[in-house]
C-alpha cells in the first residue's frame, strides 16, 4: 500500500516525474502516464473512487476552461500546422490544439500525482520523516504540527464570532468599506486568540522538555526500506518507459522540439 511508503521518498517519487513531465509537449506521453497514475491510485491505495472524483473533477473543469483560452492565445512558436477552423479573428491550428491538449493532460497528471500523495500521507508521519530523513530542525516540524492542530479551532471560532456579531445587530457587510470594517472586526479577536493560544502551546511544549534541539530520540523511526525505493523506481521508471514508447512511435516532443 502506498500509505506505508516513506513520505520523503514518496514526495521524491511524485516530484521527479512531475518536473520531467513538464518538459513533454506531446499528447501521448502525459496521456499514458496519467492512465498509469490512475491505475496506481486505485490498485495500491484504499482511496474510494467517489472521494477521488469529488476532489478531481473540479480541477478537470478548471483545466478545461484554462486550456481552451490557452488554445486561442498560443504563442507564435506553436502556431504552425494547418488551420483547423477560423472563428471571428481567432485562428485554430492543429499545432495549437496539440499543445493545449498536452498542457491539459500534463496539468491533470500533476493533480493526480498530488492527490496520490496528499490522500495517502499522514501529516505527522510526513513531518517525522522530513525531520529524520531530510534533517529538518525539530523546531520547524513540530511547529507545523502544532499549527496544524489549530485549523479546526480557528474555523469554529469564526463561526461563533459571526453569531455573536449578528446578536449585536451587525448585519452582513455591504460594499467594500463595509467589508473592510467587517474584516477588521473579525480579525482582531481571532488574532488576539491565536496569539494567546500559540503562546500557550509554546509554553506547554517547552514545559514538556522541548528545546528545539536535534538530539532527541524517535519513537516512530521512519526508515527507508527497499520497497520505498521500489516505489520511487517504478514511478520514475514508468515515466521513462512512456517516454521511450512515445519516442518509438514518433510522438515525443520535448520542450517544443520533436524528437524522432
Amino acid at each position: 500500500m502506498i500509505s506505508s511508503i516513506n513520505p520523503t521518498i514518496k514526495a521524491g517519487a511524485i516530484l521527479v516525474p512531475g518536473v520531467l513531465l513538464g518538459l513533454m509537449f506531446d499528447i501521448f506521453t502525459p496521456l499514458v502516464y496519467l492512465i498509469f497514475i490512475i491505475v496506481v491510485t486505485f490498485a495500491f491505495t484504499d482511496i474510494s473512487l467517489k472521494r477521488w472524483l469529488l476532489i478531481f473533477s473540479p480541477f478537470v473543469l478548471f483545466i478545461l476552461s484554462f486550456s481552451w483560452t490557452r488554445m486561442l492565445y498560443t504563442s507564435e512558436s506553436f502556431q504552425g500546422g494547418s488551420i483547423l477552423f477560423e472563428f471571428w479573428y481567432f485562428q485554430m491550428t492543429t499545432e495549437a490544439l496539440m499543445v493545449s491538449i498536452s498542457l491539459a493532460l500534463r496539468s491533470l497528471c500533476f493533480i493526480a500525482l498530488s492527490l496520490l500523495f496528499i490522500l495517502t500521507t499522514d501529516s505527522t508521519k510526513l513531518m517525522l520523516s522530513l525531520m529524520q530523513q531530510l534533517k529538518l530542525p525539530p523546531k520547524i516540524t513540530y511547529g507545523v504540527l502544532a499549527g496544524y492542530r489549530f485549523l479546526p479551532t480557528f474555523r469554529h471560532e469564526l463561526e461563533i464570532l459571526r453569531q455573536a456579531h449578528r446578536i449585536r445587530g451587525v448585519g452582513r457587510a455591504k460594499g467594500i468599506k463595509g467589508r473592510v470594517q467587517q474584516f477588521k472586526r473579525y480579525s482582531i479577536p481571532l488574532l488576539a486568540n491565536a496569539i494567546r493560544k500559540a503562546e500557550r502551546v509554546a509554553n506547554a511544549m517547552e514545559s514538556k522538555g522541548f528545546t528545539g534541539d536535534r538530539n532527541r530520540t524517535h519513537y516512530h523511526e521512519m526508515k527507508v526500506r527497499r520497497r520505498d525505493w521500489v516505489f520511487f523506481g517504478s514511478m520514475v521508471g514508468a515515466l521513462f518507459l512512456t517516454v521511450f514508447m512515445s519516442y518509438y512511435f514518433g510522438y515525443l516532443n520535448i520542450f517544443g522540439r520533436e524528437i524522432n
Partner: protein
Amino acid sequence: MKEMTQLKPLIEVNQFSFDYEQLNEPLISEVSFTINKDETVLLMGSSGSGKSTISLCLNGLYPDAVEGVASGDIFFKGINIKDFEKGELNQNVGIVFQDPESQFCMITVENELAFTLENIETPREEIEPKIDQVLKTIGMVDYKYHNIHELSGGQKQKVALASVLLLDPELIILDEPTANLDPVSSIEFINLIKGLKQETQKSIFIIEHKADDWLDFTDRVLVLNKQGQLIANDTPRSLFTTNKPLVENEGLFIPKTYQKQTLKPQNEGTSKPVEANMVINNLSFNRKKTMILNNINMTLNKGEMVAIVGENGAGKSTLLQLMAGILKPKKGNITFLGEPMQKWKEQKLRQHMGFVFQNPEHQFITDTAYDEVSFGMTLNGYSEDVIKERTEQLLHNFQLSAHKWSNPFALSGGQKRRLSVATMLDETPDLLLFDEPTFGQDAQTTNELMSIVKDLQTKGTTIFL
C-alpha cells in the same frame, strides 16, 4: 543530618519580582515562599493577580521566553534556577495548564506522550512501555490511539497530566487545571491527583481561585493580592477561620466548609404571575446524521430565572442558539412573545432578546467601552442625548465609567464580562440568554454578575442560563 535534608526546601522563592515591562509596579512583587518535599501547596489569587505567571517562573520558562524583567531568586533544591541548562529544569518541574485546547502539539494521544519522552531522549525501546504504564495510571488505556481533539476536556487534562508524569518531576504544578471542565470531570481529575499524591509523594503546587475540592489534601495556602504581593502563607484551617477577612477582601471564594452559615436559596416559593415569554414545541435538531436535540418542550415564563444543565456536549449551546434564532430548528417551533420565531424581524428580535456569549471578546465590535454600549442604541435610532445618558448610566452601573475610553480588549477578565452584559441592555430585554457566564470567574465577578442579573429579573426579564 537527616533533619537537615528534610528541612531543605524543594523550591525556595526569595524576594522575587516579575513584570513583562518594568519593575516599577511589578505584576509579582517581592514574593517569598518555599515548597517542601512531599508538600501540597495551594496558591490563591483573584483573576489577573499573576498566579499563572508564577508557575512559568518556577519552571524557568519566564522571564526568558517573554523577555520580561525579574529580580530576586528562585532556588530548586538549593541551586539557583538560572544555573540550569535549557530544558533541564522542565524535567523536574512539570506543569498542567488551564486550557485543555492549547497544550498539545501532536494529533494522537500516543504521539503526544511519545513527544515528551523523545524530548528527554528516552531510548526508543522504552517509550512504548512507558506510555502504556502512564495510560494505566490515568485510567485511559483504551484511548492510546485516539485523536486528542476528539477527547472531552477532562480527558485532555488527564493526557496533559500523563505527559507531565512521564517527565517524572519532583514538583507538579497544576495551573487551574479544572477551570474549563464540567463539575464531574473536575472532581474526577482532582481525585486522580489525590490518588497520585498518596502513591508517589511528589510535591504539588496548585493554582486555583476556588479551593474547595483541593482542601482535604492541601498542607498550606498562599494568597496573592491584586498588587502581586503575597499576603498569606498559612494552613487552610487558620487562614479560612482567623484570617478569613483577608481572603474575602481579595474577592476570593471562601470554601463552603468554612462558611458558618451556608447561603440561603433565594428561590423558594415563587408566586409570580405566570405569563409565558417563550414556548418551545417538539424541537429537534441534528447536525449531519447525529441527533443533537430530540423533541424538546419548554416554557419560559416572564420574570423567571431558568437554567439548563447537562454535561458538556449535551447540546446546551445548540439549544441556546436555536432560542436566539441564530440556528434554524429541523423540526418543531419556537414562539417568542406570542409570535413564531421565523416571523420576527432580525432587528426587532435583537431589541427584545439579549445573548451573552461565553467568551466576552467575541461580542466586541468597536474600539472603546463607550461605543460598545452605545452601539445598539445608535442602531435603534435613539437621539444623541438619550444615548449619551443611558450609556453613561449603564457604564456607571457596571462600574466601567473609569474605563469608558479603554479598548474593550484591554480590560480585565471581570470588566470584559460586565461590559459584554452591558452591551445587551440598551433596552430592558424580555429574554436574556447566557452561555456559561461564570466560567472561570472569581468569586467577586460571579457575585457582581449575579446581582445584576437578579436585578433584571425583578424588572420582568426572563433569564436563561
